[in-house]
């Protein structure tokens, strides 16, 4: 019970600090994009609109008022869930984000799992080979891997598995001919709910390369942190004591070593997963994956301000949510923090 109370306290505290952050971020987004040399009023009208019409539109959009008032109006609408209409797609930004966000979340979540598996396995392996010649080699390899960001991994995997061997699809979410079920918006989930197993596997197949690219790119830093924190933990007396008690090395690693070493790794994951969420943008573009990243880049190319603001804010919220979630997990796993 005490644990839940502490976690609840942390959640409340973190959400309360997230609010001012979001306010500042939204103000920044609003200002950065307001200094642009484009006129949102003229852009939302057909090109043959008269000067009077543009003026009327400016007034209607509140563009003739001081910037802080404009921000107030924008924020007020935002709180009601109204981010405005896309100039280019002629659709509400909320609905555009609503359809693309689930795709990006699915991508990010699976990629995080891939990164966790690779990161933990690699970290354990690095630790296992400590002091041997293999360590020097692996250490070098991990620097090599660190030098390949998700952006290059995506292209690289696409070339190998998509173009040279032609074993995996690399565009979009589904092959042509597959019907897209819509229940929750999460394709994998929806195809399971509606019992479309073939659709599910087809969608999963399309996600292998993007998720691998994101996951592999993130794992070297996790590996290195896990290894160094395992090395730290193994300096402690209780490991020596466990050995004296005659526990097997495996038991020491799982019950004593990993249990303590996982914490620093976890706090790094919070930051890294936030970055991963941003990294989906490029992976989405490379794999023509219909998520928020593609929406954002389309919007940037068309100077579609409402989408840029809405998507930017959504990315920000996602990062904060991920970091709060990882922090709560940290608290669950760390008895020292819980006691306080």
């Amino acid at each position, binding site marked *: 019970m005490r644990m839940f109370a502490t976690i609840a306290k942390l959640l409340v505290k973190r959400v309360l600090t997230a609010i001012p952050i979001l306010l500042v971020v939204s103000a920044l987004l609003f200002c950065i994009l307001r200094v642009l040399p484009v006129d949102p009023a003229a852009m939302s009208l057909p090109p043959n609109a008269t000067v009077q019409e543009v003026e009327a539109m400016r007034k209607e959009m509140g563009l003739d008022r001081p910037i802080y008032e404009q921000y107030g109006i924008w924020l007020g609408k935002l709180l009601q869930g109204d981010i405005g209409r896309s100039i280019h797609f002629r659709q509400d930004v909320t609905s555009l984000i609503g359809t693309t966000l689930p795709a990006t979340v699915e991508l990010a979540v699976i990629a995080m799992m891939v990164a966790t598996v690779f990161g933990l396995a690699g970290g354990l392996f690095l630790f296992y080979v400590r002091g041997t010649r293999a360590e020097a080699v692996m250490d070098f390899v991990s620097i090599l891997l660190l030098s390949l960001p998700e952006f*290059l991994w995506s292209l690289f995997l696409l070339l190998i598995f998509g173009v040279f061997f032609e074993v995996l699809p690399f565009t979009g979410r589904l092959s042509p001919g597959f019907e897209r079920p819509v229940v929750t918006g999460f394709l994998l989930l929806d195809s399971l709910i509606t019992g479309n197993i073939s659709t599910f596997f087809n969608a999963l197949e399309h996600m292998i390369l993007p998720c691998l690219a994101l996951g592999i790119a993130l794992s070297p830093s996790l590996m290195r942190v896990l290894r160094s924190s395992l090395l730290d933990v193994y300096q402690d007396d209780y490991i020596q004591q466990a050995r004296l008690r005659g526990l097997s090395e495996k038991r020491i690693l799982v019950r004593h070593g990993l249990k303590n070493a996982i914490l620093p790794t976890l706090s790094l994951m919070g930051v890294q997963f936030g970055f991963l969420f941003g990294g989906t943008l490029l992976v989405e573009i490379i794999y023509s994956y219909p998520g928020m990243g593609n929406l954002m880049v389309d919007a940037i190319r068309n100077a579609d301000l409402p989408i840029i603001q809405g998507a*930017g804010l959504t990315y920000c919220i996602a990062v904060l949510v991920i970091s709060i979630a990882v922090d709560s997990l940290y608290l669950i796993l760390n008895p020292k923090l819980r006691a306080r």
Partner: protein
Amino acid sequence: MASFEGKRPLPLWLRSGRVQTGLVIIFILGICAIFAPYLAPNDPNEQNLLAILTPPAWADGGDPMFPLGTDSLGRCVLSRLIFGARVALTVAFTASVGAMLIGAFFAHVAGYFGGWIDWLIGRVVEIWLSFPPVILSLILMVGLGTGLRNVVLAIILVDWTRFCRVLRSEVIVLRRRDYVSAAQLVGFSHWRTVTREILPGTLPLLITLMSLEMGVAVIVEAILSFVGMSVSSETAAWGQMIADARQNIYEAPFNLIAPIGAIFFAVFGFNILGDGLRRTLDTRLTQTERT
């Protein structure tokens, strides 16, 4: 070998194989960038519409005039690769110096003075961190407009927090040292205390971070030019080459491999240099970790 005996041995950090590898890579790239007009076999912007998407010279149908083949507009891939090093290195050096100066300044101010200044700077960094770097740099590029100067500015504005966060905790450790208190007692000004007593202690970390930041800057520039938000299309940049090759992935897969290799080579050079520097300069690492 007798002539070497009288010489002083190389400083420790230069004897590290990693540092040497990194420096050699950066040196090669630097030569490419500086002497690009002399090294490149062709004009990087010259379109040769009769010879588009030619494969590399060693493959079937290759033309020795274009050692690495041509892109979709018939431009020489090797020449564009060599000229692309100019953009990459310019951004790497200027952006990392800029981010370092701003980040280090705020880190020292926050760590040295503490109190509300530290609190304020900490909150600003927190706000920055709530943005994925790629998203923030894209949004900044929308606000600033494209061009080399703005790419550098965007990277500085995004990445100064990397320096600030890490250096701040280092400054806090150093501030508590006796020699810093001694300097304050003797009546050193704040400026003099920070620059003479604290900065020498944070310098190794600062140099390491800068080397890593150069790698990050190369990647960010490539990303921005990949989505068409970096230098204008007349300037050869590795990210643009990737974007172009992405369109013709089946006809000319090699066009994609070349710029990927170049970016990887550059980033690896900066990373291995940074890793080598970290190992040799960080006084707190144990001897075992250093070797």
